[in-house]
């Protein structure tokens, strides 16, 4: 065995042995799994293909096996009696890289496991070990690098951002005949809108929707975006690298402080909101902050309930359904707000089943939707259940409050030749909200 391979083995085994020092859930998951098979019966990946290596308990066993043979009495005993290796063979790291990037981190397993074992935590540990060896898949590595360098996962410059925003303002002028502003880099603003970059560069109707909300509420000059920090996406979550995740987040905290804002106004991105709210704010990464974290859908839904807006639902006549992004639904409890918005903006909103916290993953979670190297896997296996669910609703537009979900869903529709449009939640609002008596006049009615 070459010394390079020996050191990979060493690093892996040391890291796994170290799980005995916590955190608590990770250690408990090593010891408490009863191999009952419930996780497999609720996993979208296993649903797509019932193969042993796609069984969540088996994937977790990649790590668990090593932990047991080093850290538990029965494991060490079995090792001594039956011999064999401790579960990590030469060449296994390639297996790890493939398989830990086949879990979408959706946490359905955790929801139904009788012990609440969260395999996404084990997956993330596997990815963290892979990352520490410098072996994270190239696509993911690049996204993290680009994001840390430029402040957004597309590597777009502030100039590119400005022209995208200018374009959106022109669009809104065409739609409504009046100026609807998207402030940029405005210090002293109250709300700092942080969308996923996709909602500026690829599916911008979510951003125009937000702009219109602020406009109608008379807050057109109370919000701002940042030409440097316009992408809440944070791939340090997906690569398992806490250092990268916090560094990426810090860029935004610093920008928020610089602008002097009061509300970190997160856009339609599940993992961005989850990191900002459930991790950064709730566990206090940066101590006391002069602003609070709010999600745009909460804000808008609240105002809809207060009757602040009027809608022309006839602008959205097609049947619309909502896909709960795993991070919003299961991990943040944001389920009613998008529905309030869609029900107000659309003529024919219908649920898929199951929904809310029990909804199925789109198949592109955990950063997988950025990896085109596993397109076939995502289209045929991890996204299979989602496709079935959507078809069953008869919807012609599926709203998903997440750029990664949207990418996965759009690819699914194209791959499976389905004539179903994919977009965000505020997109629907953007099309039907009434400003000065009428809704948007749109020429291009595709998607």
């Amino acid at each position: 065995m070459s010394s390079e391979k020996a050191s990979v083995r060493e690093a892996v085994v040391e890291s796994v042995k170290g799980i005995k020092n916590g955190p608590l859930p990770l250690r408990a998951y090593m010891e408490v799994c009863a191999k009952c098979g419930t996780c497999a019966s609720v996993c979208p990946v296993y649903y797509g293909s019932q193969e042993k290596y796609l069984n969540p308990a088996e994937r977790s066993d990649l790590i668990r096996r090593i932990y047991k043979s080093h850290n538990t009495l029965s494991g060490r005993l079995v090792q001594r009696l039956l011999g064999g290796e401790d579960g990590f063979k030469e060449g296994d790291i390639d297996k790890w890289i493939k398989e830990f990037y086949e879990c979408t981190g959706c946490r359905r397993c955790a929801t139904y496991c009788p012990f609440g074992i969260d395999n996404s935590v084990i997956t993330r540990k596997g990815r963290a070990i892979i990352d520490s060896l410098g072996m994270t898949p190239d696509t993911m590595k690049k996204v993290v690098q680009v994001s840390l360098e430029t402040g957004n996962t597309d590597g777009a410059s502030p100039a590119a951002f400005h022209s995208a925003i200018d374009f959106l303002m022109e669009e809104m002028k065409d739609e409504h005949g009046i100026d609807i502003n998207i402030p940029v880099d405005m210090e002293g603003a109250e709300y700092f809108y942080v969308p996923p970059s996709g909602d500026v560069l690829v599916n911008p109707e979510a951003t125009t929707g937000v702009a219109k909300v602020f406009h109608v509420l008379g807050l057109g000059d109370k919000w701002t975006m940042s030409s440097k920090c316009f992408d809440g996406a944070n791939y340090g979550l997906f690569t398992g690298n806490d250092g990268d995740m916090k560094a990426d987040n810090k860029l935004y905290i610093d920008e928020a402080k610089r602008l002097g804002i009061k509300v970190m106004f997160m856009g339609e991105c599940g993992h961005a909101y989850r990191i900002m709210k459930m991790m950064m704010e709730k566990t206090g990464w940066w101590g006391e902050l002069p602003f609070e974290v709010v999600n745009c859908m909460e804000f808008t839904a609240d105002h809809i309930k207060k009757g602040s807006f009027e809608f022309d639902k006839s602008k959205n006549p097609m049947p619309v359904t909502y896909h709960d992004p795993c991070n919003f639904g299961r991990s943040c409890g944001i389920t009613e707000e998008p529905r309030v918005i869609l029900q107000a903006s659309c003529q024919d909103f219908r649920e898929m089943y199951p929904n809310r916290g029990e909804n199925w993953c789109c198949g592109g979670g955990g950063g997988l939707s950025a990896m085109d190297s596993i397109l076939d896997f995502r289209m045929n296996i991890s996204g299979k259940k989602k496709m079935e669910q959507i078809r069953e609703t008869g919807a012609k537009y599926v709203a998903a409050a997440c750029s990664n979900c949207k990418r996965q869903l759009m690819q699914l529709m194209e791959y499976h030749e389905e004539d179903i449009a994919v977009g965000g939640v505020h997109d629907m609002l953007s099309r039907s909200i009434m400003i000065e008596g009428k809704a948007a006049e749109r020429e291009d009615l595709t998607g």
Partner: protein
Amino acid sequence: MNILIGAVLPLITLVVFVGGMIYRIYVWNSLPSPKMTLFPAPKSGRERFVEVMKETFFFKSLFKGDKTLWALGWVFHVMLALIFIGHFRVFSAIPDNILAWMGLTPDNIDTLSLVTGGGAGVIILACLIAILVRRLEVQRVREISTSGDYFALILLIAIILTGDAMRFISHFDLKDTHEYFYGLVTFSSVNLPDNGWFITHYLLGQLLLIYIPFSKILHFGGIFFTEALVHKH
């Protein structure tokens, strides 16, 4: 030989089981826990306590996830609880005295024992066999099963079989165990009952207790940590 099986081994079992449990729970309690809420989540400490109790007594998440497994697993655990409570009668005459004081005749007590104890002993055996068959037959369970999983089931089945045999085949008299355990706790004698089924049952039971702190059966302790975590807001 009597001393070895009747006094030394039980002492070892007691120490390993109690010590093992305390150690495991102490270690788990000392490790940091991050926030990992799963929604919908309880909003107050009281609500959270209720949720964890629902999981403990009704296996709520499992019911939503896999109803067949829930049926087998839940009935198994309810029977186990009955048998556990019933075993207090094995160690001392006090439980029976209390029942008599409450108004039950010896015949009443025998019937109660037959129905809840004997009945549980039969139903739990059926559950265990069904669970074992499930593990062998259902692909997604079979493919992730290890020797430890089968060992636990076979050990449990052997314990139940010998226990049932004590009741239905050899008509074991609890006076014998009352005498034995009394002698043990007063350090006055070691009168191990001279019954093959009993001795086997006793040995296997102790093997189980020794095994518990080091195995997945510990889930009954672990869930207070893992389930509680995902329900914490």
